């Protein structure tokens, strides 16, 4: 439906907000990648069918909630990611705040009849607290949600990402409407500058400053165009913040880019989405088509003197394509290799013209800033890192998932209150932040506030917001080797320090995990790391030694134990551990049956024995033993 003017947009927003406010209930079936894999679409279909068969007033679209008699009714939709992917498929019922976890299609009838019909809570579908085992009814009772502040993720899990109506009903495009009828481009730019927003994609560079330099560069070259690009490449293993935003609130990303284009006088934008994100690609493509139909993208947006259109490009499939110069080359149709950035891409970027590249989360925050004002945004978080930050919290915590907190929240709060502490009551050992080339921080650093500068000063970095929690059974040498090997596979291979350096670091670390080498091996590692940091062509190589340097800084003793005592204290490095069965063995025979090489002997109810010569250290026995009788040392 074409919206012809700013006034028409405002009228539509008012109408839809009223419908939204009048809803009696919203049933949100999470349709993020995790829940869809778990069968969320089938759950949605089963709920739809069950409601149709019931006498309840349930609609599948906001606009059709209007012509029912009586106020509101219930809106049943597929939403973006709720964040608590671990326990999906999730169904959230509002305003009752009932969160059902691990829902299956056969639960639909009960949910419709009991909860929607009679207002009863179905206990067996509730989340159980990992420590107390008590059921928790909804977000309000769960530490995972209670300590979060959702700004950029506010709509993820709250609305249907396919519905422009829901976006408009919840304040969407208010910012663009204001920009078009009351603000000048300069005022929008100044708002972003004054908000103190820093890029969420890695470096934490000031967004306002970046926009300003691109604008200046364009003014200096009046014949050139200015391009805006959204970086949705998100290649960090285990990270899914940007994916969730693109899937769960695609209109916000697009509105942010439109606002940027308005401020900067750009008419062309590109969204570069990681190849492995088919759902994000589909939702964004759909959203772009919907906005074109609505007259919110394209020529003369809302009848105003502002034209802007967008194209989606699918990523080249390599991690390094997320690096800005490689990404721009890739959009140009060239191989995704980085170039030296001695001339900033704000000056000569895409097609050698002034370019603003921002991360998904950065763009999605722009409407919020323009809408609420720079001062409001700057008041959240810390002085030098204002706002909130989304993280994907994974690893050995009880609650893994997508979280958003004000900048300056401590690591401890994120890991222990939101994450619910370490699985199986084990001890915390380290948290890795900043993606593959980030760093590992030990327990002493748990009270550090999470912001750009503090993490960097501690030898790690914010990166795009990956957070991997490790417990006492993690070997830090093994972790460093894991990330170095990842980067070794992802280095583009153009420059010597990164390409050859990563290969050498990997083989040096492999020596440590085998208990070989000496202290001089560690100085070799440090010397190579320095060369890579100083001389590599792009930020991948320059930051690649971080995993080794940070583990060496905080866990040097663990390296030395490997080298000097041929011991892996965490019992991970296969060449350095032995498996032994202790007195706790009840002779249940489980391990004997589990051992794939027949290294375990023993009769029923008699202490079992492992033949060390046959044992391949696969860990199968330890995994099956119910009595913790298999000792790894």
């Amino acid at each position: 439906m074409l919206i012809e003017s700013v006034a028409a947009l405002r009228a539509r927003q008012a109408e839809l907000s009223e419908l939204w406010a009048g809803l009696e209930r919203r049933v949100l079936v999470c349709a993020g990648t995790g829940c869809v894999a778990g069968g969320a679409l089938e759950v949605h279909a089963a709920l739809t069918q069950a409601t149709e068969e019931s006498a309840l007033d349930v609609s599948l679209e906001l606009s059709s909630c209007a012509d029912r008699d009586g106020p509101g009714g219930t809106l049943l939709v597929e939403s973006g990611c709720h964040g608590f992917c671990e326990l999906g498929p999730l169904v959230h019922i509002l305003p009752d705040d009932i969160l059902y976890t691990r829902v299956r299609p056969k639960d639909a009838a009960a949910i419709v009849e009991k909860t929607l019909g009679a207002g009863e809570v179905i206990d067996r579908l509730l989340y159980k607290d990992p420590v107390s085992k008590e059921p928790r009814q909804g977000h309000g009772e769960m530490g995972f949600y209670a300590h979060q502040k959702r700004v950029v993720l506010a709509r993820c899990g709250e609305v249907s990402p396919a519905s422009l109506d829901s976006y408009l009903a919840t304040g969407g495009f208010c910012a663009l409407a204001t920009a078009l009828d009351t603000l000048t481009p300069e005022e929008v730019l100044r708002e972003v500058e004054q908000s103190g927003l820093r890029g969420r994609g890695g470096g934490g560079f000031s967004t306002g400053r970046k926009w300003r330099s691109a604008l200046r560069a364009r003014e200096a070259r009046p014949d050139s165009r200015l391009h805006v690009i959204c970086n949705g490449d998100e290649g960090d293993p285990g990270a899914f913040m940007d994916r969730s935003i693109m899937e769960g609130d695609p209109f916000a990303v697009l509105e942010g880019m439109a606002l940027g284009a308005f401020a900067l006088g750009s008419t062309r934008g590109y969204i570069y989405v990681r190849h492995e994100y088919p759902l994000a690609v589909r939702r964004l493509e759909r959203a772009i088509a919907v906005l074109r139909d609505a007259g919110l993208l394209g020529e003369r947006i809302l009848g105003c003197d502002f034209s802007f259109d967008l194209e989606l490009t699918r990523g080249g499939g390599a991690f390094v394509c997320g690096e800005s110069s490689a990404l721009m080359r890739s959009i140009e149709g060239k191989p995704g290799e980085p170039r030296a950035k001695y001339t900033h891409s704000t000056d000569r970027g895409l097609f050698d013209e002034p370019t603003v590249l921002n991360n998904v989360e950065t763009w999605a925050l722009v409407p919020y800033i323009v809408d609420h004002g720079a001062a409001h945004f700057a008041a959240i978080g810390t002085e030098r890192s204002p706002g909130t930050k989304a993280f994907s919290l994974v690893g050995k915590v009880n609650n893994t998932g997508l979280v958003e907190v004000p900048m300056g929240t401590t690591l401890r709060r994120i890991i222990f209150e939101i994450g619910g502490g370490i699985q199986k009551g084990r001890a915390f050992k380290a948290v890795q932040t900043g993606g593959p080339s980030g760093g590992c921080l030990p327990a002493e650093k748990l009270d550090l506030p999470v912001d750009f500068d503090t993490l960097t000063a501690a030898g790690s970095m914010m990166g795009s917001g990956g957070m991997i929690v490790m417990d006492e059974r993690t070997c830090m040498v093994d972790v460093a080797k894991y990330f170095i090997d990842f980067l070794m596979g992802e280095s583009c291979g153009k420059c010597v320090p990164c390409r050859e350096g990563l290969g050498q670091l990997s083989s040096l670390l492999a020596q440590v995990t085998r208990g070989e080498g000496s202290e001089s091996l560690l100085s070799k590692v440090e010397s190579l790391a320095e060369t890579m940091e100083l001389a590599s062509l792009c930020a991948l190589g320059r930051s690649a030694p971080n995993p080794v340097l940070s583990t060496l800084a905080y866990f040097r003793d663990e390296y030395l134990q490997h080298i000097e005592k041929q011991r892996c204290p965490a019992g991970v490095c296969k060449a350095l551990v032995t498996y032994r069965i202790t007195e706790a063995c009840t002779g249940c025979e489980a391990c004997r049956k589990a051992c794939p090489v027949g290294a375990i002997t023993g009769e029923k109810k008699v202490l079992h024995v492992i033949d060390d010569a046959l044992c391949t250290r696969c860990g199968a026995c330890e995994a099956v033993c119910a009595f913790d009788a298999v000792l790894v040392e």
Partner: protein
Amino acid sequence: MHSMQLNGRLVNFEAGQTLLEVARANEVPIPTLCHHPGLESHGGCRLCVVEVTRAEWDGWWRMVSACEFPAADDLIVATESERLSRTRRNVVDLLLARCPETPFTVALGRDFGLAKSSLAPRAEPDDCILCGLCVRVCAAVGAHAIAGADRGVHKQVGPPYAPPSFERPPGLAPAGDCIGCLCCAEICPTGHIRYENNAQGREIWGRSFRVVECASCGAPLGTPEQLDHFAARSGLSRDYFERCDACSKLDTARAFDQQVMGEGTS
């Protein structure tokens, strides 16, 4: 006129020059490997690193590749330091570990005081240091027949998109666009790119070419593909390329003489 500081000396430069060009103009040596004055900069070897800073940077500095970094007013550049030597030596050490037997890298190692690499040699080494000169010269020739394939430690240069030999229809050569000009082999500093000129013609990148001879003197001229390519690129007549350089110069001189002087030279 622009000026900057180079190793403590004030030097002038022209807009658009790189630090390497300014240094060479002032006879300040900077080691390079992947740079070639006639080709686009690559920035791959990182041997040409130098340190740059500015008075207002408050002691902050950065290491950059001189072959790419644009000279700028009031820049302060150092081409030698303890740290730079260490870095360059490590880069050479890494290359020597990559190509432990290659005469070129062995000699390079010696220049940097390394009798052999202190690092683990590559398991199955070849002679390629991935300087990218061959790829760039081939692109400059306009053939675009070779490129970097794969990434990281597995990166290689060669003809892209070549189907495996047993899947290849007869007649389709592995280096599909190669015109057999040998530019890549001639520019390669390590001799990694093998080729052969023999009685049948020429072989490179697993492909055989005929070699045509100069229409006047009979000296070997090049491959027919090469001559077609140059004719098409230059827009000149193919006939122009039928003769070797020496003969066509002679022809031109004769024609000139005949026209202008009205008599032949013999």
